[in-house]
């Protein structure tokens, strides 16, 4: 039995890395696509088999511990070398830190710590592995079709498509390794390796903008990686070589350092700028690394730490930082008209919400964090893929240009509508998560306030966007757009997954999220928080079905009552000019045809990015500093 488990781990971590490595060697296109399918399918199958096996600890061969100790400084040296190549002294200095720490541990004599290398398969890592493998696998399939088109008009400076896809596939393995390992050194290695993947993929275009964004991403994430390396050094000095043993200790410094690492990875304020820069990368990268998986490594780490934050001020501050990020990022997204940047800000906000819940320390809060983690991964990946498809067709990612796409590309738009609805409409999972988060934070007034303000602001940009893409004049015939079968099938599969997940919200809540959260937090549950957790179950019973029924009936009745003969042109303060293409041209002064046009509100004078950054970044920095302040008090 143990043997099969080890094979599964190999399939989850090594196979994708191997496939990616071969693809980087400029193989023909056919073999390349075959390797992607092979890597993706293997991880999906292995993750499901692993999940069916339940939770377990597996001790791997002790030599892996030594390998980790050797590899850690090597990865540091690699980043150092890249830092030299892109002429950033700061990156060099930070990446040199693991080298120095290895030296220090060699001198102090606890270099090759004898602790066996353990893989912890518990419910949290299983949830993460399933997200990474299934959502990630689907995104790599999508990337086959996307890159086919993208390569045709890519810039001459761009990276070769094979290497690009290779890094994307290899990333799946690295990410699986990150969430499965319990060894602190391996955690640091995988952490830094995912940073490198992100760096390579953001720099894909090779243009000045993408190079700068890649450099910034590397800088900020190396800072986080260095924090993690220092944390693991400090923990090892105290005799804790694994994450699980660290969590039983009462040492606060490693926890605070890890919290900072998780904040930088999850692009929380004040580290958010790298994620916005990362939006220059092709859409599959944004969907895979920068919304559904890599940034979730930050959320994963903070959720791992959560049980250890019992009755510490640290937990409160992590929670505050998260809630603050949620409110500030939601406010900033209002002024954005670039679809990908809106999605990026919304991602930052939701990751903040997860961190806020992780610090609250109750079963309900943990359940809320898990709900958001799972549903956000699927919905946001789907939305990024939709924006990518739309961009390839209409040539723009600006929200204002997306009017009328319902007619031009009905399939993608329908899927996008489902995706957006799933972010804010009852009874979809995200809203259930937000609902639980608000109820869980009811004893923390400050966090509660930030969550309330943030969730009100999110209505603004989603409804604006949803209104824009459903704008349509009447066309009697819809032609399904021509996109690659790889892309359209993945969009359909994921759209259906979002719909079924909302139908299955009750079973998911009852049989997955609640037991997981109780297994982590059962002993901390106060009576009220447990009863609130039960009330989630109660709501998801009949009211959920009624809500779903109301949506279904309205859509059916609404569409059935519609007749073509009922169509009239909108009132435009003048006689309409009847053209086949546009119905918003009217006769203005002296009978000249004019076009009626109204852009959405962006309120940049109130919610302008720079304006809010100027206020919020300093506050966020203060929160990070206070994270360390509470340790030394």
């Amino acid at each position, binding site marked *: 039995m143990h043997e099969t488990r080890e094979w599964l781990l190999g399939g989850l971590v090594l196979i994708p890395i191997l496939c990616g490595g071969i693809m980087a060697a400029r193989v023909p296109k056919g073999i390349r696509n075959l390797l992607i399918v092979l890597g993706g399918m293997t991880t999906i199958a292995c993750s499901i088999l692993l999940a069916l096996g339940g939770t377990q600890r597996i001790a791997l061969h002790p030599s892996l511990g030594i390998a980790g100790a050797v590899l850690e400084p090597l990865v540091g040296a690699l980043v150092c070398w890249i830092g030299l190549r892109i002429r950033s002294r700061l990156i060099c200095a930070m990446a040199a830190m693991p080298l120095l720490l290895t030296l220090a541990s060699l001198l102090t004599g606890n270099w090759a710590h004898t602790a066996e290398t353990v893989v912890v398969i518990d419910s949290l890592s299983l949830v993460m592995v399933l997200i990474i493998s299934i959502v990630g696998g689907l995104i790599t399939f999508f990337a086959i079709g996307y890159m086919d088109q993208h390569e045709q008009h890519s810039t001459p400076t761009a990276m070769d498509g094979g290497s690009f896809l290779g890094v994307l596939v290899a990333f799946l393995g690295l990410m699986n390794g990150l969430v499965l390992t319990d060894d602190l050194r391996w955690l640091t290695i995988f952490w830094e390796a995912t940073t490198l993947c992100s760096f390579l993929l953001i720099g894909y275009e090779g243009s000045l903008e993408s190079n700068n964004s890649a450099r910034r991403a590397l800088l900020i994430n190396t800072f986080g990686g260095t924090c993690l390396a220092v944390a693991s050094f400090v923990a090892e000095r105290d005799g804790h070589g694994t994450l699980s043993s660290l969590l039983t200790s009462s040492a606060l410094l490693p926890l605070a350092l890890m919290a900072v690492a998780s904040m930088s990875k999850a692009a929380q304020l004040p580290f958010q700028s790298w994620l916005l820069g990362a939006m220059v990368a092709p859409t599959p990268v944004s969907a895979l690394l920068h919304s559904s998986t890599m940034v979730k490594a930050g959320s994963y780490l903070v959720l791992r730490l959560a049980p250890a934050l019992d009755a510490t001020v640290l937990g409160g501050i992590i929670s505050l930082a998260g809630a603050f990020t949620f409110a500030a990022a939601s406010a900033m997204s209002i002024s954005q008209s670039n679809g990908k940047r809106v999605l990026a800000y919304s991602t930052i906000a939701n990751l903040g919400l997860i961190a806020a819940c992780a610090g609250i320390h109750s079963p309900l809060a943990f359940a809320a964090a898990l709900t958001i983690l799972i549903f956000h991964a699927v919905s946001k990946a789907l939305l990024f893929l939709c924006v990518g498809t739309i961009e390839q067709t209409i040539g723009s990612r600006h929200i204002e240009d997306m*009017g009328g796409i*319902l007619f031009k590309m009905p399939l993608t738009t329908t899927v996008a509508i489902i995706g957006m609805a799933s972010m804010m*409409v*009852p009874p979809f999972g995200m*809203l259930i998560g937000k*609902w639980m988060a*608000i*109820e869980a934070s*009811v004893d923390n*007034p400050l966090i509660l*306030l930030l969550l*309330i*303000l943030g*969730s*009100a*602001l999110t*209505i*603004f940009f989603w*409804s*604006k966007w*949803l*209104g824009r893409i*459903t*704008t*349509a*004049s*009447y066309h009697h015939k819809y032609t399904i757009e021509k996109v690659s079968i790889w892309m359209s099938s993945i969009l359909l599969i994921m759209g259906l997954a979002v719909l079924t997940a909302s139908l299955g919200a009750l079973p998911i809540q009852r049989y997955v999220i609640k037991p997981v959260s109780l297994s982590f937090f059962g002993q901390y549950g106060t009576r*009220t928080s447990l009863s609130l957790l039960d*009330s989630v179950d109660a*709501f998801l019973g009949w*009211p959920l079905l*009624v*809500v779903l029924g*109301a*949506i279904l*009936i*309205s*859509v059916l009745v*609404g*569409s059935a*009552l*519609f*007749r073509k003969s*009922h*169509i*009239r*042109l*909108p*009132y*435009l303060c003048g006689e309409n000019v009847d053209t086949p293409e*546009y*119905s*918003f041209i009217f006769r203005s002064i002296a009978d000249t045809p004019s076009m*009626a*046009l*109204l852009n*959405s*509100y962006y*309120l940049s004078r*109130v919610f302008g990015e720079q304006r809010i950054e100027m206020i919020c970044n300093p506050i966020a920095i203060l929160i990070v500093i206070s994270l360390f302040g509470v340790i030394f008090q």
Partner: protein
Amino acid sequence: MITPNPTFQIALLILLAPFFGALIAGLDRKITARMQGRIGPPVLQPFYDVMKLLRKEPIVVNRIQVVYAFLHLAFMALSLILLVLGQDSLMFLFVFAFSTLALVLGGMCVRSPYSRIGSQREIMLMVAYEPVLIVLMIGMYLVNGSFLLASPIAAARPMLFTLPLIFIAVLVVLAIKLQKSPFDLATSHHAHQEIIKGLTIEYAGPYLAILEIAHFYEIALLFYLIMLFWASSLLIGALLACAAFFLMIIADNVFARLTSIWTFRFMWTGALILSLTNILWLYL
């Protein structure tokens, strides 16, 4: 006390609530007219309006618009049911918010600048009042120890005494939801406020009737929400709600329109801080 069968209760609500709402709307028009020195329409005028609209030829701009109208109606009725059956208060708010959102999206999905302006203003209003309503629910939780909307009814003291400042803030929200001046900027009931109708301009005939019926549900819902502040006695609760509605009519006739950004600022400073102060002493 006899607890009626929930199915019976739901059926009764769905059937009777619009009539109740229409009656309130009719009284509103009558009283407003008297305040302006007019005789005004008969009290039953809103019924006649809806009846006539329903018999008219359906006119639409596109298919989605119709779907949104039905979503608006269905979710409004649903939120009323959740409220009266005493379900979870935050979930009630989300369903209620989605109903308004469907109305907004219905206005946005047509290529009419007037309708779009109305929609965007309505979104601004939603963002402005939503925090106050959530704070109301948090206040209810702190007072009654439960998120269920049934809990205020079981409470011994009327919520008006424990949440007085929130009550004031909710009155402002009431003005926004009833489209009363100074907050009737998305669309108005009065001809003197706008030259061209906002949000609902592209709805006509039976589909406009659907929006009207949804508004009747909304009136009933808001009436019940105010009644919750004195839930121990049905009569006093109803009197309180009547007084609140009367106050709205006075405000409607006294004020002129605000701009949307001004409304937003007013709600996030004035009304929100007022209700937060109320929460603050409940935490202490």
